[in-house]
């Protein structure tokens, strides 16, 4: 089955190479779209297979685990790959109109595809050092995308993004080294067994905290998130959207994977830290957003706040809480990428993302207004949209184990999220434009309109579907959480896959 597992990594890489070779032609952008569509098909096949057969593992180069590099797909990995492909497809269609010829020539599409390959690799790998390599693939291509164009703000944001992420990388690498010294293996399934044999469990907790900090920087949790609002509002809107949707979520995924599979020896200690982190992340993110007055900066701070909810699900560490975390992860990627895409259209129509400088969008472009309301309400947790169910599950999970305070914090942060969304709505859509302009969608060419609005409408539809028919998604999240809490099939699939 290893070919099926390596496809989500190989397809974007090959697409990236092709797109780079044809970057001087208009075809590069279309290759990117087609590549993402094929990736979506491949990931759907993989998903069907995992749903059917349970955890799938494959050994690269036929070296048996734990010696070779293992690729594993359980339900969580599979759904993350599918959602990566969906986001990639939406953003690559959006990029048809947004990315200009100069950025295409500089290799935008190739970098974008390599980024997707890195993200898929990180989701599918079953080896800790291999995870480090995928993080690097992701990181170097995100550096390129972030500063592509080279404006002052991009370089400025880029410096902070690059330096802080490199610190996290080095911490990750040291953690890998120490963990290898302690256990003698880096295969995640093998690690799950090996950590129980370690005599000095205290040392293991120290290493666990190192990983927590390293992944915490990637996931942008309190107090390690400062690189995110410094950088995410500077690049092209397509780049912002794919970063906002996917990159921090790879950090969250790595946290969930490591702290359910490997570091579950001292839950009382590690997960209590995570609980505090989750609470502070939710609150600081949402308060930071309340203080901003730029469309994209508000959204950037909201990424931080929403990450807190996912960490909360992991920190509570009950079956229901993990269901909430998985559901939240999926819902959030769709909604957040969509909001960034919408902020892009708002900028094209009105010329700015600074809320004081824009307005009147609801009157002149009502369609965009409605498309904005769907993800915005979903983010804030209005029933019956997807965010409502995600927050509902998490709050219920915390009430079930009598964590009253954190449940209160989660609800209060939801309320403040509505405040920020109303602020954007009031200033960008409701109030008249400060200079009396009436930005209409018709100033865009028909091709532009299609390639901007199609992905937005597609993602909004997805939000509505998850909202109105949450049943299959919740069931899926339940199965996925059960797999996370009982790693035996995962370990068996990896170590028993080959004689």
């Amino acid at each position, binding site marked *: 089955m290893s070919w099926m597992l390596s496809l989500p990594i190989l397809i974007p890489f090959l697409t990236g190479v092709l797109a780079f070779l044809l970057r001087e032609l208009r075809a590069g952008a279309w290759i990117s779209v087609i590549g993402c569509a094929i990736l979506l098909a491949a990931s759907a096949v993989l998903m069907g297979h995992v749903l059917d057969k349970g955890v799938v593992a494959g050994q690269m180069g036929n070296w048996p685990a734990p010696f070779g590099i293992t690729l594993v797909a359980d339900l969580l990995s599979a759904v993350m790959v599918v959602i990566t492909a969906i986001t990639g497809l939406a953003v690559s269609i959006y990029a048809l109109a947004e990315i200009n010829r100069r950025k295409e020539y500089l290799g935008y599409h190739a970098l974008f595809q390599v980024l997707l390959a890195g993200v898929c690799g990180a989701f599918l790998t079953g080896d800790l050092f291999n995870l480090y390599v995928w993080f690097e693939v992701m990181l170097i291509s995100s550096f390129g995308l972030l500063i592509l164009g080279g404006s002052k703000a991009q370089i400025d944001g880029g410096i902070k993004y690059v*330096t802080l992420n490199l610190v996290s990388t080095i911490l990750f*690498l040291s953690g*890998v*080294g120490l963990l290898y010294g302690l256990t003698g293996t880096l295969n995640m399934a093998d690690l799950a067994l090996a950590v129980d044999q370690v005599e000095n469990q205290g040392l293991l907790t120290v290493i666990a905290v190192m990983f927590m900090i390293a992944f915490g920087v990637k996931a942008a949790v309190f107090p390690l998130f400062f690189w995110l609002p410094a950088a995410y509002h500077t690049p092209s809107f397509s780049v912002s959207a794919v970063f906002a949707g996917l990159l921090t979520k790879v950090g969250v995924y790595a946290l969930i994977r490591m702290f359910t599979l490997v570091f579950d020896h001292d839950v009382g200690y590690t997960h209590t830290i995570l609980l505090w982190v989750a609470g502070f992340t939710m609150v600081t993110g949402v308060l930071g957003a309340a203080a901003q007055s730029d469309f994209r900066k508000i959204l950037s701070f909201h990424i931080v706040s929403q990450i807190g909810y996912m960490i909360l699900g992991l920190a509570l560490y009950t079956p229901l809480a993990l269901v909430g975390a998985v559901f939240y992860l999926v819902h959030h990627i769709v909604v957040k990428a969509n909001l960034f895409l919408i902020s892009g259209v708002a900028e094209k129509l009105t010329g700015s993302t600074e809320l004081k400088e824009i307005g009147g969008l609801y009157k002149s472009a009502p369609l965009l207004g409605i498309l904005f309301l769907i993800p915005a309400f979903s983010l804030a947790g209005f029933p019956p949209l997807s965010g409502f169910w995600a927050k509902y599950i998490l709050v219920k999970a915390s009430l079930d184990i009598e964590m009253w305070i954190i449940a209160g914090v989660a609800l209060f942060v939801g309320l403040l999220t509505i405040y920020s969304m109303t602020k954007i709505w009031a200033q960008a859509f409701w109030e008249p434009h400060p200079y009396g302009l009436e930005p209409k969608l018709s100033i865009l060419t028909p091709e532009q309109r299609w390639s901007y609005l199609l992905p937005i409408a597609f993602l909004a539809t997805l939000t509505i579907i998850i909202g109105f028919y949450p049943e299959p998604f919740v069931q899926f999240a339940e199965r996925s959480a059960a797999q996370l809490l009982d790693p035996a099939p995962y370990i068996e699939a990896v170590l028993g896959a080959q004689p």
Partner: protein
Amino acid sequence: METLLALAIGVLVAAAVYLMLARNVLRFIFGLILISNAANLTIFVSGRLTQGLPPLIADGAYAPVVGSANALPQALVLTAIVIGFGLFAFALVLVFRAYTTLGTLNSDKMRVAEPREDAAK
């Protein structure tokens, strides 16, 4: 030997942290390069050190002699060095570009992406 290397790693990390606390971004990058080398040495030591026994498999044997050097951490370090080289090459060019476009290497003065409220007025 382990003690000596542990001390060397400690010195490297201390020097790196000192450099990384500077406001000058170039010094920060130099600090990062030092601390990444400390991380590489950590991996190297975690494979346990041996003397004069390369992990070569003799003719007709199926495994190296017991007590020979552990090749895996060395392979990991090699990968990490290559990746680190690429990242730092990029970071250095980015710092140079920052110096030419922003006109400063002082991280306190890099406020283009996040302007201060009072400065904007």
